[in-house]
């Protein structure tokens, strides 16, 4: 089945204080589709003043919103979930157009998962309770959770609606008002969502400001009227945001990417069965979402005694990937999200080859025909080399995996942990001991065991090392958006006797 490019208005606005408002300065930027390079629409090129208006609106709304009941907030979160679900195909098409990812992914992963995150946090806030402890016969310690107030959120372009749906629900469920800046590459589904849910929340509870990082992102991250900043992106911006937060003594949470190892022990090839087939797919998942995933399994580590046989099948499976129009439901790998990503990936092919990496398959751009000739397509690529090569150490953010072999468990762990990052990892084995011991020894926040690339709500997700901190997709994220008010109550009628 094939879909076509959805219809857009000529231009869109920010969503501030419950209304769509044009940018104060009147400037807009052209948003293009990576599918074919065509223009989607104009979006506001917001400046500091627009951000300030949004932050002021959020501050004006925070007291009333923070005092709503958990029941009320959960009901509204569920309403959002229902609205996204009822318009699933429309959201999926817009997302594919804006980001370049295949329609089968937006229909089956991005949008349904987004729906579930809204529902999950609606459920969490209803089920959760505070705590009370009787410290002694006359003293009660009571913990009441309170919202922080106003939260700034800056999200990336690789899963636009899904990243929004990881960030907004826990902040809203806990009674915060939010100013969110979508990535300038992918402003469309955030805008579509606001069109659909404009009347769901009181004005000022959700505010969306579009624009460029230095002009709109920085004023949001450094605003003294914001109580917390949550960011997903890369390390340099992460450091800057922490710096700005330090001036305001504000908490932050960060998710900054990785270079995730995907480890295949020799027992995966003990049988030629469904599990081996799953493991091979597990290796090829590096191409999922064009490799534009913070946890892309971009380092494939294979035990040496199965290396040739295993890789033969991984290469064959990689070469069977269909790369065509992302609107076509047969498309498995779509377009890279932007020209600069496209160029960057190709620059990595060059240095990879110079460093001696061997191209097992792919290794170049993929020029597609017709309208797609102006899109940003890269052939799914496997590079063979060693872990000190730059292609093994840097996040390429393309459909590119680097492959190397290891002798034993110790060497597998040494290679796996020889990275600046620690976001995700995969371990594949039929050995019951390895199933537990290897994941425990990997320094990463999420280790998939005999699976990969699953992101269900209810399983905490976040990084070790330079991959950041904070745990999303789980009720523990709610504590990152809260204060704890401790009330220490004495039921003793008698004085201390000091004075």
């Amino acid at each position, binding site marked *: 089945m094939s879909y076509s490019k959805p219809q857009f208005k000529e231009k869109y606005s920010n969503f501030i204080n419950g209304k769509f408002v044009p940018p104060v300065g009147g400037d807009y*930027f052209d948003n293009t589709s990576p599918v074919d390079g065509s223009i989607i629409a104009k979006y506001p*090129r917001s400046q500091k003043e627009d951000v300030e208006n949004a932050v002021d609106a959020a501050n004006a709304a925070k007291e009333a919103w923070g005092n709503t009941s958990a029941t009320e907030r959960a009901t509204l979160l569920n309403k959002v979930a229902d609205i996204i679900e009822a318009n699933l195909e429309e959201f999926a098409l817009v997302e594919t157009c804006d980001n370049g990812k295949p329609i089968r992914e937006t229909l089956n992963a991005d949008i349904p998962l987004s729906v579930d995150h809204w529902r999950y946090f609606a459920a969490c806030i209803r089920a959760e309770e505070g705590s009370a402890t009787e410290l002694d016969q006359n003293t009660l310690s009571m913990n009441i959770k309170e919202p922080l107030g106003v939260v700034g959120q*800056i999200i*990336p*372009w*690789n899963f636009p609606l899904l990243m929004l749906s990881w960030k907004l629900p826990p902040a809203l469920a806990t009674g915060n008002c939010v100013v969110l800046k979508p*990535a*300038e*590459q992918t402003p469309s589904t955030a805008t579509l969502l606001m069109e659909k849910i404009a009347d769901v929340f009181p004005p000022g509870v959700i505010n969306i400001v579009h624009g*460029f*990082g*230095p*002009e709109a*992102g*920085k004023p949001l*991250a450094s605003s003294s009227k914001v109580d917390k900043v949550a960011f*997903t*992106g*890369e*390390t*340099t*911006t*992460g*450091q*800057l945001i922490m*710096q700005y937060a330090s001036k305001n003594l504000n908490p932050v949470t960060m*998710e*900054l*990417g*990785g270079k995730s190892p995907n480890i295949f022990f020799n027992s995966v090839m003990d049988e030629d069965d469904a599990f081996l087939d799953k493991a091979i797919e597990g290796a090829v998942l590096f191409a999922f979402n064009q490799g*534009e995933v*913070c946890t892309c399994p971009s380092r494939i580590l294979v035990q040496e005694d199965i290396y040739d046989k295993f890789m033969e099948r991984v290469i064959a499976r990689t070469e069977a990937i269909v790369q065509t129009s992302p609107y076509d439901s047969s498309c498995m790998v779509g377009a890279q999200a*932007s*020209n*600069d*990503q496209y*160029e*960057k990936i190709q*620059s*990595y092919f*060059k*240095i990879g080859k*110079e*460093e001696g990496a061997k191209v097992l398959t792919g290794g170049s751009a993929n020029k597609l025909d017709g309208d797609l000739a102006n899109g940003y397509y890269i052939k799914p690529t496997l590079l063979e080399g060693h872990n*000190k090569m*730059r292609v093994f*150490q*840097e*996040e*390429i*953010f393309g459909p590119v995996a680097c492959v190397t072999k290891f002798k034993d468990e110790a060497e597998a762990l040494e290679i796996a942990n020889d990275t*600046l*990052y620690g976001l995700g990892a995969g371990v594949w084995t039929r050995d019951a001991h390895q199933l537990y011991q290897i994941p425990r020894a990997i320094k990463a926040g999420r280790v998939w065991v005999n699976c990969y690339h699953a992101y269900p709500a209810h399983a905490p997700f976040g990084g070790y090392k*330079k*991959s950041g901190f904070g745990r999303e997709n789980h009720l523990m994220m709610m504590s990152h958006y809260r204060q704890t008010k401790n009330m220490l109550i004495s039921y003793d009628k008698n004085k201390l006797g000091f004075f």
Partner: protein
Amino acid sequence: MTRVDITERAAKVVKQLKAKHGDLIFHQSGGCCDGSAPMIFEKDDMYLDESDILLGEVEGVNFYMNQDQFEYWKHTHLTVDVTEGRGASFSLEIPLGLRFLIHSRLLTEAESSFFNSK
């Protein structure tokens, strides 16, 4: 000998940014999304210390990289280039519809012994 150079078209953009923002620095980012790209900021915007390695100067702008990252990069020579694009970082060229990017090559033997023999 240099560890880092700049293309003519990138130098032009740096000049333009200097005229608008004053003194600048480059910092090489790592990690996801817009990472693995050089970013340019006003000189005092980013807190730098001994954990940031100064690789050299391009178009009068110091080029820094975090020490940990440098350990994996030090055998390569970098050239700052620019291309059309969008980035979600705070790098100052983004409003121009441009992105700096890095082209890399291996250091020659002479360069390698000059820079990395200590």
